[in-house]
């Protein structure tokens, strides 16, 4: 029951739209238009409120995002043409967008839903390390994540090597690595007793050929799973990306739209980052027929989104989407610190708290700036998702969330630039058993207690 969309019209427009030199698209078209809309709609970042309550500004961000998409379009770098859209296109796509989808299969089937601001429904929790891992730890890490009862969906770690060969994008090693990736992931799901669990796969595929190679309802990515299609920074696509969304639709699996508007880059500051994030949800729907949008706006220098400039952008874009659409979107945390550090747990908690209260579903948690191999574990993701369930269950208000977010920020924000790298997976997990070490678990419990004292009412 995926949202139908006009992929052939989009493909036509990608070939016949208005010509523009790629060098001009961002500096002369995208950024000036965004700057104009920030001014027109009076969008203003306030560092004192990482989780604002300004409904009027949320609605203006929505309108600015709509105008941005309609005025700028979406650039195809292969044809050098702009895929242009009309108000009618956007309205039609929004009308047919569904507020919930059944994902996964059998006993492991789950409902992924649109959430509202201060919703008491728990967020749909996709757990993901978002990072590369040594081949020897890949299946163990998949199992470690799948062991988390709070997991509704898994996006597994990425392989850099397959049977000792470096994986090269677009080459035969990528095809092999992608098959190895999905088979490890599916085997892990069976071994932990969750054979039908929802998966977003496979992150090892940088090229479209890798994704297409794993489309198999028996042994590969199943039709009850999802796959991602990304954008190029900002508002740009390419044939290799359009190939994916068309293939996903024709194969019959779900499509997720993966985007990360860059704070400090072509979007400018928090205001532009929030607007672009909302616009990306419209792009996902109209251009790619996405069932959900997976957003990870991030800081240009840090590569993270747990500092207040980014929490504000996440919070406001979530509120804009919740108040004006029934779309489904996940908030993907990117932390500065690495595994088994108190800072990572606090960053994850702040990200999950602000995201959940402002309507997002959760996708936790990239650590160590999403840069270093083996540096991610399920335990930080568990904490983030437990915070998400807790604040939804207690129907936490935005004011309360803002207060707790500020208290958490005070504990880690000054260390964003030189955050500790922490440990690798096998240093803080028993890789053979796919379980955290006692030391790691102790730290988790200690920080969870600290967060509980701030007012988060964990159900267990």
């Amino acid at each position, binding site marked *: 029951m995926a949202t139908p969309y006009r992929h052939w019209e989009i493909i036509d427009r990608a070939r016949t739209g208005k010509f523009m030199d790629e060098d001009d698209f961002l*500096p002369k078209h995208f950024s000036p238009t965004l700057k104009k809309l920030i001014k027109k709609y009076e969008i203003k970042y306030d560092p004192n409120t990482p989780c604002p309550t300004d409904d009027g500004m949320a609605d203006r961000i929505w309108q600015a995002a709509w105008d941005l998409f309609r005025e700028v379009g979406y650039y195809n770098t292969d044809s050098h043409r702009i895929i242009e859209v009309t108000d009618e296109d956007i309205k039609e796509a929004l009308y047919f967008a569904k507020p919930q989808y059944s994902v996964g299969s059998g006993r492991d089937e789950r409902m992924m839903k649109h959430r509202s601001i201060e919703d008491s429904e728990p967020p749909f929790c996709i757990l993901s390390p978002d990072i590369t891992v040594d081949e020897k730890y890949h299946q163990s890490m998949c199992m470690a994540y799948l062991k988390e009862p709070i997991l509704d969906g898994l996006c597994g770690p990425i392989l850099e090597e397959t049977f000792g060969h470096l994986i090269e994008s*677009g080459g035969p090693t990528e095809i092999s690595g992608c098959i190895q990736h999905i088979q490890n992931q599916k085997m892990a799901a069976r071994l932990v007793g969750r054979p039908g669990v929802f998966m977003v796969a496979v992150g090892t595929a940088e090229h479209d050929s890798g994704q297409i190679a794993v489309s198999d309802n028996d042994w590969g990515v199943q039709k009850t799973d999802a796959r991602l299609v990304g954008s190029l*920074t900002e508002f740009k696509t*390419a044939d290799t990306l359009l190939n994916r969304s068309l293939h996903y639709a024709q194969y019959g699996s779900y499509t997720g739209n993966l985007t990360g508007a860059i704070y400090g880059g072509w979007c400018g500051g928090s205001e532009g980052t929030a607007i672009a994030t909302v616009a990306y949800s419209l792009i996902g729907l109209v251009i790619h027929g996405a069932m959900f949008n997976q957003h990870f706006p991030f800081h240009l*220098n840090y590569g993270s989104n747990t500092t207040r400039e980014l929490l504000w952008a996440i919070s406001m874009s979530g509120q804009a989407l919740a108040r004006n659409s029934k779309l489904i979107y996940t908030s993907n945390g990117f932390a500065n610190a690495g595994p088994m550090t108190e800072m990572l747990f606090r960053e994850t908690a702040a990200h999950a708290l602000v995201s959940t209260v402002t309507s997002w579903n959760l996708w936790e948690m990239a650590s160590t700036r999403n840069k270093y191999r083996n540096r991610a574990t399920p335990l930080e993701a568990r904490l983030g998702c437990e915070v998400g369930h807790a604040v939804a269950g207690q129907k936490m208000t935005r004011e309360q969330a803002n207060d707790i977010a500020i208290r958490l920020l005070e504990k880690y924000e000054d260390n964003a630039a030189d955050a500790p790298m922490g440990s690798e997976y096998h240093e803080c997990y028993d890789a053979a058993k796919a379980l955290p070490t006692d030391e790691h678990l102790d730290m988790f419990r200690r920080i969870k207690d600290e967060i509980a004292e701030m007012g988060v009412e964990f159900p267990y």
Partner: protein
Amino acid sequence: MSLENLCKLVEDGDAEEARALTEKLLKEGINPLEMIEALTKTMAHVGDLFAKLEIFLPEIMLSGEALTAAVDVLAPYLEASGGRQIKGKVVLGVVKGDLHEIGKNIVKLILETNGFVVKDLGYNVDSLTFVKEAEAIGADFIASSSLMTTTMPRQLEIIEILKSKGIRDEYKVVIGGAPTSQMWADKIGADLYCYDAKSAPELFSELIASK
């Protein structure tokens, strides 16, 4: 209108006004070398603001354009007076299979505004193209960026091609991009891991000095 005004126009990213004022100041007899020195300091200041994200990418790009407009006017005069010092020639691009270029574009801007000549090859660049372009312009550096772990092996491929052609020692090979590291640079035998854009001019200068 003074040299100070010109520097302000560059900082504000007003290319047309910067070009016009440069022409005017030249007619008034201001030394072009003095102008280029002041503009270089201004651009370093703009670079510092950007490094702290007190300004954002669109603003520094406009400043870069304004600087280019002023330098274009000054170029003939600089050549007549001994020329602007070129710190090095760089072939720069994003490796094959990788379409992410924001980091590469920032490095390009910072290098160019600090006295390097940059040949920008764009993104999704074949490894052999890096080498051929370096040979064509007599580059000092071959610099490649990779944002994806699965495109990092192309940085190794560039070095392997240089070795196969017997010209490895003729170029300084620089790598960068989010998933890359000093460890990766050491593993593949690159000469420099460039960890951020702001540090690029200093790191490149140190490397060429050690040639």
